[in-house]
């Protein structure tokens, strides 16, 4: 299914991590595209930006932020958004994303993706802010579902209802993190397939896959391990729902050699190929 903006199917990608710069720049790795953590490149100069320019010369890039704090009740940080916009002008990403979360209030940044109560008030607030950010950046942004460990007693709707309504009203795009859906479904006791079924498929431009740590009574989204079996199963379901959507593996800790991540990415290619037929496995030129 084509997304609403006809954004390209980029194929199968990885998070761009400094440990892999030299292997990536050597070429021949077969990774179709890369995602950057936007904040890591919001610097004045130096090696990181230089390497990013070099990777960008040969690959599509998408920008993924962790500090937009879209659900915070602090004012939007226009300085941050200005730097983000300038980076986008330099990199020309396929799209820009951030998370459905807040990262702090009263001027403090806790550097974590904190959970949102699924209330009508929070929905109105988030919708209004996404709209303002999109107006400022001059483009739709993709919002990612975050992992969460707590539910709020004040929530008035389910997470998937909140996300679907947010997407419709803010006219934004979606980055579906399949691992996060699974983690939240286990932690809060809901059916992850029902979550996926509630997502507006024409808004989904990207999917994330990642590893987590199972602690028996709850799961923590650690990004430090291989994608788990249940998450691969859910990915298969997501491909059935959303079709050929740009997919990548996120690894932020205990980062293995690039070759290991490429091998793991092969599992995503295989699953997507099995669901969609081999003709859709390769990225659009």
């Amino acid at each position, binding site marked *: 299914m084509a997304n609403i903006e006809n954004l390209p199917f980029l194929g199968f990608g990885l998070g761009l991590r400094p440990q892999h710069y030299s292997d990536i720049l050597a070429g021949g790795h077969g990774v179709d595209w890369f995602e950057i953590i936007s904040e890591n490149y919001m610097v004045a100069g130096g090696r990181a930006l230089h390497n990013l320019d070099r990777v960008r010369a040969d690959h599509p890039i998408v920008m993924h932020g962790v500090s937009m704090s879209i659900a915070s009740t602090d004012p939007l940080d226009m300085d941050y958004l200005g730097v983000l916009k300038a980076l986008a002008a330099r990199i020309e990403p396929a799209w820009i994303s951030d998370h459905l979360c807040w990262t702090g209030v009263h001027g403090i940044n806790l550097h974590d993706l904190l959970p949102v109560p699924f209330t009508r008030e929070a929905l109105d607030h988030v919708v209004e802010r996404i709209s303002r950010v999109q107006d400022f950046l001059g483009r739709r942004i993709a919002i990612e579902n975050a992992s969460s460990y707590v539910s709020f007693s004040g929530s008035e709707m389910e997470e998937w209802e909140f996300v679907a309504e947010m997407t419709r009203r803010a006219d934004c795009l979606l980055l579906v993190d399949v691992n996060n859906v699974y983690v939240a479904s286990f932690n*809060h006791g809901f059916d992850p397939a029902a979550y996926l079924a509630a997502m507006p498929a024409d808004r989904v431009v990207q999917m994330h896959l990642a590893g987590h740590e199972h602690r028996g009574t709850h799961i923590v989204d650690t990004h430090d391990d291989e994608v788990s079996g249940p998450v691969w199963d859910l990915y298969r379901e997501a491909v059935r729902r959303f079709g050929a959507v740009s997919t990548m593996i996120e690894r932020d800790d205990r980062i293995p050699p690039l070759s290991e991540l490429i091998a793991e990415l092969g599992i995503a290619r295989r699953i997507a190929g099995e669901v969609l037929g081999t003709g859709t496995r390769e990225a659009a030129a």
Partner: protein
Amino acid sequence: MSSALSALQARFQDGLVAGRDDVLADIVDSPREGRETLFGVYRHAYAARLVESLSHDYERLGAYLGGERFEKLGHAYLAEHPSVFRSIRWFGDELPAFLQSHAPWSASPELFELAAIERALNDAFDAPDGSPLGLATLSEVDPADFSRLTFTFDPSARRLDLMTNARLVWLAIGEDREPPEAAAAEDGPERLLVWRAGYTSKLRAMPADEAMLYDEAANGLAFGPLCEMLATVMEPEAAPGRAATIVAGWLEAGLVVAIDVV
């Protein structure tokens, strides 16, 4: 914004930053786990992530202090300096000043200076890109203008004056050797220059006369007055030659991005 949402976010943040439990009343137990444990995931992650970020930015200070002492320092710093930055990259900026002003660390000045070295290297690493001039630039200058030349240094360049042997400690840890006992710098303060050459941060000790010239040149003093200043601390007739050698060294090291005639 005053609302149920802002009040909830304030309680949640207080739960992480100040250790308050008020927010637990807003949270429900999950099917398998109590709310204290679930909220504890956020509590743990908050401190762990920020202290880990410090350990990356101040790797050699961490090695010098040892894991447990560094962890204690990190938590004390976090308690006083919660991040106000969009990127975690800047969170540790005030650590050198914190070490200098807080016991027990302030009693060991090599700690603050070791941190200052690491911070200067980090700052040089992602400072704005300069376009260094080569030595040949000097040959294009009319000799009649020499005394009126001013120099603009690469935006990555910064100077430190160390009162201890922190540079030797820094060096030893980087080479995986036992660091020397902390001590006062020999022969007065040690003058350091930190800059980025290409994409690599570098550091070197400067002779006192070069450091004096560098500091004054960075303030905009022209070559002629620099020579006069140098003549007050050495044989006057040798001063212009020494100054020229120093300036040529700056150009060769890629430290100079502009030469102007004033």
